[in-house]
């Protein structure tokens, strides 16, 4: 066996030498093999993605057959056997409300931070430290954010007089906002740094102040990238699970206010898949499919904007 392996490596050495020398037949054959391997790997990825979509659709069929498209608009989630009825509206509403709120909360903070990093203090030690902190925040696992929200943020909000013992849409949005700030910041920072210096210098030479340059040059030329960055962050907030599950209150109703408890698509799946079977399992898979479509659409919009406006 070791012989076989060493001969393989020997073959590899020979053919790569052949490549370097540009020798006809050998170079071509290794090229073909590489192509075949690459094709195979890409095909496997395609197969996995396609298989996922197929199994999601297949699993969701019983729920859609039973409830029709009313499944998306019904707010009645009743798992008691005998009066079983499933509707996804509470979770769709919860997901969109928390994600939009998170985006709104994170917007001023991450936008200021990205200007600070990419424009005002670009290249300074302070910007480096801040940039490092942003990357650090981006790397923290979701469950750690959840723990912090449960044991630190929630008691703080209770002491501020928040109802429902600090659980609910508002708290979930705050923690989601904190989670997407580093993501949005580094994406827009990247775009802002890419604005050509010539443009800015031209503006300065005409006597523009720094804030004028930012408003009239930097932001307009980085706009599409910044918007796309926020859309991608929004897509990320939609699918966030653990931290939200720990803090949103998990009540299966459409939130009726900022401080109401609720549930999201991701967290209802995480909560209930273990005991689910039959129609309930199918309904959870259908929610998964809807979430898949929702994040897919959001990401596609983000990419479209980058392509169109860049």
């Amino acid at each position: 066996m070791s012989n076989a392996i060493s001969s393989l490596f020997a073959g590899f050495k020979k053919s790569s030498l052949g490549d370097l020398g540009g020798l006809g037949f050998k170079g071509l054959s290794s090229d073909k093999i590489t192509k075949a391997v690459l094709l195979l790997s890409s095909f496997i990825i395609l197969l996995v993605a396609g298989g996922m979509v197929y199994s999601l659709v297949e699993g969701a069929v019983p729920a859609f057959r039973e409830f029709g498209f009313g499944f998306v608009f019904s707010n009645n989630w009743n798992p008691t056997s005998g009066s079983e009825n499933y509707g996804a509206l509470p979770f769709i509403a919860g997901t969109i409300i928390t994600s939009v709120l998170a985006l709104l909360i994170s917007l001023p903070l991450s936008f200021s931070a990205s200007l600070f990093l990419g424009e005002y203090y670009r290249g300074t030690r302070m910007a480096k430290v801040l940039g490092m902190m942003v990357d650090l925040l981006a790397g923290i696992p979701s469950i750690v954010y959840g723990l912090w929200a449960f044991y630190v943020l929630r008691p703080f909000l209770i002491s501020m007089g928040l109802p429902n013992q600090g659980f609910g849409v508002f708290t979930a949005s705050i923690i989601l906002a904190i989670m997407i700030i580093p993501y949005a910041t580094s994406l827009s920072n990247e775009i802002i740094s890419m604005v050509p210096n010539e443009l800015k210098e031209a503006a300065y030479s005409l006597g523009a102040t720094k804030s004028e340059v930012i408003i009239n040059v930097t932001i307009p030329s980085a706009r599409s990238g910044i918007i796309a960055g926020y859309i991608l962050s929004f897509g990320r907030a939609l699918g966030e699970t653990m931290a939200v599950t720990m803090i949103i209150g998990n009540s299966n109703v459409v939130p009726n206010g900022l401080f109401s408890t609720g549930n999201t698509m991701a967290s209802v799946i995480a909560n209930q898949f273990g005991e689910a079977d039959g129609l309930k399992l199918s309904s959870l898979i259908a929610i998964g499919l809807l979430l898949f479509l929702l994040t897919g659409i959001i990401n596609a919009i983000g990419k479209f904007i980058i392509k169109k406006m860049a």
Partner: protein
Amino acid sequence: MKQLAIVILAVVLLQACSGTSNKKADEKSANISNVSLTAAGATFPMPYYNMVFKTYGDKTGTQITYGGIGSGGGIRSLTDKVVDFGATDAYLDDAQMAEMPAEIVHIPTVLGAVVIAYNLEGVDGLKLSSELLEKIFMGEITKWNDSKIKSINPDLNLPDLAITVIVRSDGSGTTHIFSDYMSKISSKWADKVGTGKSLQWPVGMGAKGNPGVAGTISQTRGAVGYIGSEYAFAMKIQTAQLQNSSGNFVLPTIETVSAAAQGEIPADTRIMLTNSADPNSYPISGFTWIILYKEQNYNNRTKEQALATVKLLDWLVSEEAQGEAEKVHYAPLPASAVEKAKSILRGVTFDGTPLI
């Protein structure tokens, strides 16, 4: 070319690894003391199972892996034949039994209680009548200093604090026992909410798993919820006295939980013990079961594995294992249940011949 070499190398190595591990598995199954068993199911009896399975493993060399994935997961794992046995807090009804691919049997393993845990600083010994329980969990009483709570607890200094009901957000055998009891004491509950592993709650916030509910209650002033007794005791959360069917207020203790199982038990042990008629009983008590196939030769299981399964379960209902139950706040099985469990185990076969 490089990629190809790496792929081939990986495949060769993988095969080499799996080859040796197969050999090991063969050696293991030849010796019954080195059999490893896989089980999955309810989280409610998990503290007890974790403890006794370890004791048994140290004693006999049989390694048991138990996954606390919930009662429904335990039933599904057994249906899919991916475990040696499953565990559930809610017995399978006749319709569910008929849906299984082969005949299964229930072995009761221990008695547990679902306690009403609450978080009110300085308020010990809260008493809850059936009426209060119904009104709190249906959202009709929303303050701790409500006159209805005061009239049952005249000596307690109840605060002017909102009641936060905490329920299970995941499907759960604990929820099944609790809602079974609630349906027995309140026709309104039976009508509007019903019995099940997961429910449409009229009020409350959800937390995942017994540990999740226990953690949320202990972190939330004014919270009340239902949890498996061990989780309340382990976290030192206050528990309420409940009014049983004879009108007595009782705390969940080994004695009061045992008292709930003193009545007649059917031969297949499938019975709910909630709202027992015994005057000393704690009303939300119940068996938790292990479920297995009556015919153990399926999916190429070896006879050693089948024998190890049945021997483990036979030991689980023995005095030695039952004596350990109290350490983790479960009550041992009554003698009549042990007797029935043993006779069921004697009916478990391999290729038609009983194993023990």
